[in-house]
């Protein structure tokens, strides 16, 4: 079969498949999010709207820094006590464990790992993010208390890296959540990570790491971007 024939054939097939392509008609309501009716103990039937009833879902508010010496002191404390959420989103997460080894020892810098977003203030996006993971990242990011910082790791978070043409991997992280520090490389070594942390500490001390407020300010824009690619949005608009 010659090349020309093949191309013809393919375009022919394409035309055909356009016609009978399986365009899914899913509405993408998570089954647990559908409004359901339950019978109360007294026999009455009540309607449960899970997204409304079970989640707060309120918009985030900007929490302006107070300024002055107190804020400076607190910024210093924040910079010296960076609690990193233990959430490996991509291949870069393998670069984080070396940080706790004697060779790199991030504890020297006041950097510690925490298991729960409630107690963390730094989030390392370690490499490529598929759409599926992005949903979890957004949820987790929103659950962290402000002020919170995001360190994006590797070229995938900057421009998609080697996954620039993947149908399931995002290209630019900062369209979806605000990023404080990018660390380029594929993958950056732990030294580079530490350099990134040091950069972050500088930013915090200077009072420039207010991306949480930026997120709140541009909330609609971020949400629009997020919802554009996350079709089965099975959570409230803001996860408290």
């Amino acid at each position, binding site marked *: *079969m010659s090349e020309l024939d093949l191309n013809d*054939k393919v375009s022919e*097939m394409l035309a055909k498949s356009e016609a009978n392509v*399986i365009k899914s008609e899913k509405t993408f309501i998570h089954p647990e999010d559908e409004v359901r009716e339950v019978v109360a103990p007294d026999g009455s039937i009540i309607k449960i709207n899970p997204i409304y009833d079970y989640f707060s879902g309120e918009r985030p508010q900007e929490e302006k820094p107070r300024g002055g010496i107190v804020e400076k002191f607190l910024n210093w404390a924040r910079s010296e006590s960076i609690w990193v959420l233990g959430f490996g989103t991509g291949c870069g997460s393998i670069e984080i464990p070396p940080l706790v080894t004697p060779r790199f020892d991030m504890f020297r810098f006041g950097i510690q790992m925490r298991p729960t977003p409630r107690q963390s203030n730094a989030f390392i996006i370690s490499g490529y993010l598929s*759409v599926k993971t992005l949903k979890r990242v957004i949820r987790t990011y929103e659950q962290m208390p402000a002020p919170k910082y995001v360190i994006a790791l590797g070229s995938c978070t900057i421009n998609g890296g080697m996954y620039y043409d993947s149908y*399931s991997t995002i290209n630019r992280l900062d369209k979806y959540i605000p990023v404080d520090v990018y660390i380029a490389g594929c993958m950056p070594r732990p030294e580079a990570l530490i350099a990134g942390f040091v950069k972050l500490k500088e930013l915090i001390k200077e009072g420039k790491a207010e991306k949480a407020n930026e997120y709140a300010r541009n909330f609609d824009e971020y949400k629009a971007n997020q919802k*554009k690619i*996350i079709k089965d949005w099975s959570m409230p608009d803001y996860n408290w």
Partner: protein
Amino acid sequence: MKTIIEKLNSKYNLQEIVYQRDNLVFAAINKENAIDAVTYLRDYEGFSHFVLMSCVDWIEDGKFQLLYLLNNPTLKSDLGLKVYIDRNNPEMVSAHHLWKQIWTYQRELKEAFGINFPGSPRVDENFVVEGWTDIPHMRRDFDTHEYAQKTYFPRGDRKTNDPAEYMRKKLYPNQPITAKQRKDDK
């Protein structure tokens, strides 16, 4: 192994029998007979282990090729049964009753190629991608680059270089190109 294939051939009329190795044979089989043959192999010939199930998109022929790869632990042999199904009407009889893990394979094929397996449990649920609305993403007529460009805010200033060329230019900008290199470049 040979006797098994012969027996199977006489029973179900195999095509394209390929003896890849002593213990690895591929053969094509009619869509109608496929599940019968798999059941027969499982129940009478000792192919008790279901290795995998995969799909190839022969877009030029307008066909999907499903592969049921079975393993016989006593003979230490594998047998791949290929089934061609129509690409325009991609539907195959479900085999979930034979091995439970086939549920998952069929769910994956449904999502990735849009092949329907009526009756297979949970076959319509998400498998890898969540909330996919476009045509099935593993079909060859799906253009992933275009999709990514359309969907994910590509950075406009992205440049792609041949790493070897780029590094040579960067490290040794003044060095002339040798004949060997030119040959290689071709």
